[in-house]
């Protein structure tokens, strides 16, 4: 019988595919990042959380190690220009009020999304609210280049700080809703977030090396799209790939999901703006 060796080869082949995260260390300009740590207490099925950086190829990882090589920094530069650009009927720029510059926002990104006056607020909401109410300017499109450049600029100020979103108190109902979405199977393929990012991280889904789906590096520069990708854009992409009708970017569902997914990364250092495949 020739069959048995073939089976053995097939089994080894599959085992070879199931490579987990690598064990390299992310260090940018001498600062070392936490890319692996104990899971936050609320996580029931995962004991260790890993940054998505650990699941990427060495070439992609290298792009994030040097800020000059990081293509996302072009967009951060554009964010600085936007920060100083006057827009709207009030004749103001971001810098008119935020006189200390973007550095004023150090630490903010780590706490987002958060609940303000009973509503769940994410960074894009904050930016557009200020643009409309204070500057009298048109709101930016959620995943537009201007918006994500600004989100990345503000996020960069918190780089190296651990994610630390609140999930209790006012945030609890939103967090529960996000958790429910995370574990709900969507689409013709009937896949939930957890099916890939909790049960199968480290495995290959066709050509893609599944990470835990942590969002501590967003907005990230995706090589595939050659631009900054928002958290909601990525949520939409994943749900679309299950062949489902997706929620809209900026919808209450995605905001709740963002809170829940952000809380799964509590303890990992912020890498914004990260580079991914």
């Amino acid at each position, binding site marked *: 019988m020739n069959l048995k060796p073939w089976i053995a080869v097939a089994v080894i082949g599959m085992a070879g595919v199931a490579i987990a995260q690598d064990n390299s260390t992310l260090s940018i300009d001498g600062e070392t990042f936490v890319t692996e740590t104990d899971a936050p207490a609320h996580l029931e099925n995962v004991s260790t959380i890993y940054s998505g950086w650990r699941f990427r190829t060495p070439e992609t990882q290298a792009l994030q190690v040097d800020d*000059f*090589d990081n293509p996302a920094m072009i967009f951060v*530069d*554009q964010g600085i220009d936007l920060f100083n650009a006057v827009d709207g009927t009030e004749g103001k720029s971001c810098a008119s009020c935020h006189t200390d510059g973007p550095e004023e926002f150090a630490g903010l990104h780590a706490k987002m999304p958060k609940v303000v006056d009973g509503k769940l607020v994410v960074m894009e909401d904050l930016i557009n609210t200020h643009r409309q109410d204070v500057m009298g300017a048109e709101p930016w499109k959620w995943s537009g280049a201007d918006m994500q450049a600004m989100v990345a600029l503000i996020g960069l100020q918190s780089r190296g700080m651990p994610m630390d979103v609140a999930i209790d108190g006012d945030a609890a109902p939103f967090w529960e809703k996000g958790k429910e979405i995370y574990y709900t199977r969507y689409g013709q393929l009937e896949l939930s977030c957890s099916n890939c990012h909790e049960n199968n991280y480290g495995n290959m889904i066709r050509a893609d090396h599944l990470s835990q789906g942590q969002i501590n590096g967003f907005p990230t520069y995706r090589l595939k799209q*050659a631009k900054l990708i928002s958290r909601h854009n990525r949520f939409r992409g994943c749900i679309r790939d299950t062949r489902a009708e997706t929620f809209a970017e900026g919808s209450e569902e995605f905001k709740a999901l963002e809170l829940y997914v952000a809380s799964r990364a509590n303890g990992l250092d912020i890498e914004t703006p990260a580079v991914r495949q």
Partner: protein
Amino acid sequence: MASGVKPRVKVPKTASAGDTITIKTLISHKMESGQRKDDDGNIIPRSIINRFTADFNGQNVIDVALEPAISTNPYFQFEAIVPESGEFKFTWYDDDGDVYEESKKIEVS
């Protein structure tokens, strides 16, 4: 002038004579290939950086011809041997006739 063009260069500040140093350059540019169409079906005219050069104290180090297939924000990394202190001058030539320049000094001991 194409919008949002910003050259960026990374050159070590110091080196020893005869050292081989690594130079990194990046310029933000759309690199419109001339192959794409807009929403109305009209071809978007080609607008790319077509040439990049680096000179050290007037001597040419690298001279690159760029073609439309090169993607947005072209990045170049190359090595050079520096015999003496001096200045690197980088020049990017745009299809629309614009020239973007950047220079960096290096101390050689």
